[in-house]
């Protein structure tokens, strides 16, 4: 008797499994096609650093605290500024935390890939440029019944 009941339960369970899968046939996918649809990260996202040249005193705390030692202090005229090598940076942002002067900030720019390693070395002037404004942003939102999906950002 038991194997028949077992077989019947197995059939029911597998039907439950298939129906659970089929129900999601018409849900929208999560995936975003990157360059066209861009993921909207929030203000505090730890992306590329932004250097305020006027506040930086060249004290070197960022180079001292950097776990990957990817910051070197370079001289510009008679002042000193950090220069970042993004080939080694792990974006832990201890530098922005420990900078005593508000001179380093997080930006939401995360696409900083380059073709050559030399271009990954960001000089202070390049760090000082604010990130470019990018549109076609998508926000990950959850609405109870319909489920989670990526919806275009309302530009809040």
């Amino acid at each position: 008797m038991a194997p028949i009941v077992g077989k019947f339960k197995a059939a029911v369970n597998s039907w439950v499994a298939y129906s659970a899968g089929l129900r999601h046939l018409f849900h929208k996918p999560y995936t975003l096609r990157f360059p066209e649809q861009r993921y909207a990260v929030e203000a505090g996202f730890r992306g590329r650093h932004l250097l305020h040249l006027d506040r930086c005193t060249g004290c070197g705390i960022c180079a001292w605290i950097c776990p990957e030692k990817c910051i070197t202090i370079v001289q510009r005229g008679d002042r000193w500024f950090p220069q970042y090598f993004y080939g080694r940076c792990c974006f832990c942002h201890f530098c922005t935390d420990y900078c005593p002067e508000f001179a380093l900030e997080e930006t939401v720019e995360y696409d900083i890939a380059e073709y050559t390693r030399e271009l990954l070395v960001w000089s202070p002037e390049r760090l000082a440029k604010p990130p470019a404004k990018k549109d076609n942003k998508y926000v990950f939102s959850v609405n109870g019944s319909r489920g989670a999906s990526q919806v275009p950002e309302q530009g809040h």
Partner: protein
Amino acid sequence: MQAMSPTEPGAQTMTLSVGPQHSGSGHMRLIVELDGDIIVSAMPDPGYVHRGIEKIIELRNIIRSIPVIERPSIIDASNLNHAWVKAIEELQGVEPPARGQYLRCLINEMNRIMSHLYWLSIYGVFLGHTTMFMWPLGDRELFIDLAESLTGARITYSYLVPGGVRRDLPKGFAEEAIKRTKYFEKRLDEYENIFFKNPLFTSRAKGIGILTRERAIALGSTGPTLRGSGIDRDLRKDEPYAAYGELDFKVHTRPGGDSYSRAMVHMDEMRESSQLIRQILEKLPSGPVRRKAPIVVPRGETYARVESARGECSFYMIGEGGDKPYRARYITGSYRNLAAIPEVLKGVRLADMPTSWWSIDYWPVEADR
């Protein structure tokens, strides 16, 4: 359906080298002795992703070591970070403020869910169940998004520092988190319908890869592997740290000791953690989130341990007063479950090897350090 008993010794057996390849999460090799289809013995050969983190820690000061100690298991970064920070604070005698403790528990529980979800998706793809590969990885985005607004990073947060946490809660975090955890619990029920009740899985997991209670204790296994053999051992309850003393939650165990019960322990813990997140957000006290702590490891020694997603992650740290520890012995959950793998794979059919092996949630990167 009990697994076949291993054949008598001396029978003609074939040794098979499974690996070294990216076995779901880092390279590792299994030298498996087969008698026909049944695994007679399995000997893990770890070490392909060994980076010598214990040596690196001795050369860097304690703040610069934080990203290093998170690398063994980046999807469970904040629990490992918590073990490191707890060891330093015990030596320094610094006590983070209450709000900092609660935020630590919040990020730990979110990390536990993300780690279990990643485990579940690899579990699905090991059994060829690609829907089970897509869904958990997709739903992980719920919590990655929350962690990104809280700490600024998606996966490796380096959010805990000696003395507290680095940032306070952003505005509107609590409502969003409560909405997402409720939605997530509905998704967990769907996982059970499509995967855990599915006979395709249960027939390959129930009764497979038995780890008896005595062997689990003797081998020193920990985390869901231990709790899957019916032992209610959870550091958050036995040795309450951070704010776990003030939170009430249940430790989930399953008596079976087979792959199925280990898997279901993961599922129960995910529900428990999402309920814990809501509870933490309710009881969150006000006040500063960080206390000033020196970048110094005072003289002395301590053995601090934390319940990470894969089990107890511990630091035996010896300080001698400088800003670097004299010795930091780093034992992670997977390293302790390494001894259970041969035990679990004995007598299992080769086709069922992935289910019983991956139910231990063995993470080669975390074991090799």
